[in-house]
C-alpha cells in the first residue's frame, strides 16, 4: 500500500519535473509520452489507498493517523521530543508516542489532502472543455504551487526516512525490533505487549513510517 502509493507519487513528481522545469524539458522532450505517463500515475495515485480501505488493519491505522491526543501536541511542542529515559534496561522515549508520532500524522494528512487537490485540479486540466478559462488558470495555479510544496514535503519525508535504519527495516519487512519501538513508539510497545506477550509484530501496513518534515520544522526550531 505505502510502496505502491510512493512509487506512483514519485512517478508523478518525476514526470512533472520533466514537463515543468525548462532545463529538463529541453533535455528530455517527448512531451506527448511524458504527459500520458503523468496522467496515468496521477489517476492511479489514490487507487492503492482505496483498495487498502478493504483491510481492517489499514482502517485502524487511518484512525490512529487521524486522531491527535495531548501527547501529540506535547510531541510537536517539545524541543527534546526524541529524548529517551532508561527504564528497566530499555531506553524509552519520554513522550508516550503511539504507533504514529505527530509528524507522521501531519505528513499523512497533508499527503492525503494534496493527493485529492492535485487529482481534482489535474482532472480539470486533463479534461478542460467544461471549464471557463479563469477556472482553468486557477486550477493551473493551484496545481503548480501545490506541486512545489508536495515536492518539498516528499523530499523531507525521504530525508527523515533514509536516516532512520529501524524505520526503513520496518517498512521493508513489516517488523521492528523491541528496542527501536521502545525508543520511538513507547505507548505502542506497551499497548502491543499488553495485548500480546512477546515480540512486536505488525502487518506490512503496520510498520510505523518515519515522520514528515512538519515534525522536522518543529525539531529544528
Amino acid at each position: 500500500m505505502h510502496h505502491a502509493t510512493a512509487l506512483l507519487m514519485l512517478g508523478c513528481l518525476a514526470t512533472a519535473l520533466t514537463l515543468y522545469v525548462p532545463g529538463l524539458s529541453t533535455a528530455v522532450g517527448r512531451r506527448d509520452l511524458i504527459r500520458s505517463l503523468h496522467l496515468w500515475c496521477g489517476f492511479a495515485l489514490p487507487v492503492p489507498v482505496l483498495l487498502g480501505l478493504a483491510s481492517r488493519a489499514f482502517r485502524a491505522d487511518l484512525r490512529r493517523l487521524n486522531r491527535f491526543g495531548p501527547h501529540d501536541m506535547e510531541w510537536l511542542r517539545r524541543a527534546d521530543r526524541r529524548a529517551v529515559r532508561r527504564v528497566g534496561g530499555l531506553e524509552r522515549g519520554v513522550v508516550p508516542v503511539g504507533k504514529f508520532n505527530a509528524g507522521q500524522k501531519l505528513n499523512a494528512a497533508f499527503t492525503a489532502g494534496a493527493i485529492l487537490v492535485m487529482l481534482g485540479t489535474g482532472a480539470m486540466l486533463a479534461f478542460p472543455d467544461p471549464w471557463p478559462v479563469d477556472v482553468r488558470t486557477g486550477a493551473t495555479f493551484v496545481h503548480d504551487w501545490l506541486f512545489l510544496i508536495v515536492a518539498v514535503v516528499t523530499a523531507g519525508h525521504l530525508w527523515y526516512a533514509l536516516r532512520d535504519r529501524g524505520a526503513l527495516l520496518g517498512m521493508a519487512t513489516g517488523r521492528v525490533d523491541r528496542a527501536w519501538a521502545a525508543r520511538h513508539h513507547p505507548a505502542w510497545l506497551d499497548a502491543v505487549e499488553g495485548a500480546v506477550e512477546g515480540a512486536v509484530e505488525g502487518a506490512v501496513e503496520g510498520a510505523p513510517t518515519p515522520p514528515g518534515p512538519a515534525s522536522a520544522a518543529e525539531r529544528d526550531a
Partner: protein
Amino acid sequence: MDDVDVDDREPSGTPVGRRIVLGMLGLGAAGVAVGASLQDRVSETLSPIGAPFQDVLPAAGGFRYYSVVDEVPRRDPRSHRITVGGLVERPRSFGMADLAALPQTRLTRDFQCVTGWRVRDVAWAGVALPDLLDAVGVSPRARAVRFESFDGAYTESLTLEQARRRDVLVATQMQGGPVSHDHGGPTRLLVAPMYGYKSLKWLGGIEVTDRVIPGYWERRGYDVDAWVGRSNGRDDAPT
C-alpha cells in the same frame, strides 16, 4: 475495526487529520476560484527578477519549453537553409544571408500559449511570409502553405489567405538577437495572431499546397484556425 486496535491511546482525541484534509480541499477550491488573478500578480512581481527564478517558480514570466521529440539536432546558421517548394513558380532554398537580403519586417507582440501562459511584448524580426512567397511566385492553384521542422517531426499549416498576413514571419531574430536553438532557431515561424503551437520552431521547409493539411497538434485535437481568443475554447485577449 475496533477489535484489532490494540493501541487504546489513539482512538480518542481530536480528528486533526480529517480537518487538515478538509482544510486543504477548501484552500484548493479557493485557489481555483481566485488563482487566475493571483497568478497574474505573482507573474508581475517576479518577472523583473527574471532568469534565476524562471526555472523553478510557476510561470514567473517567460516561455515554457514544450518539445514533442527527444532531441532536436542543432543547425549551424552558416550552413542552414530553408527550402520553399510545392505549387510555386521558382522553387529554391534560402540561407540566412538570402533571408537577410529580402525586405525585413519587425513586430512586437505578446506571445500566447494555448495552455495559458503569455509572454508580453516579444520583439521579432525576419521576413514577412507574403514577401517570401512573392520571391518564389505562388501558383494560381495554391490554397494553403505547409511548414515542416528540419528534424521532420513537427508540421503546421495555414490557409493561403492566413499566410499572406503581414504579421506572419519567418523569424530570424528575437529580442534583438538571433533566435536561439531552444526558441526554435536559426529560423522559426511566427504566426503572431494565433496560439503558440502555430509558430513552428526549427523551420526547415515550406511547401505551398492545394489544401490545408492539419499539423502535429491539430491531429491531436487542437483547432486548425488557432486565432488567439477565438479558438480552442479560450477567450484570451487577442495578440
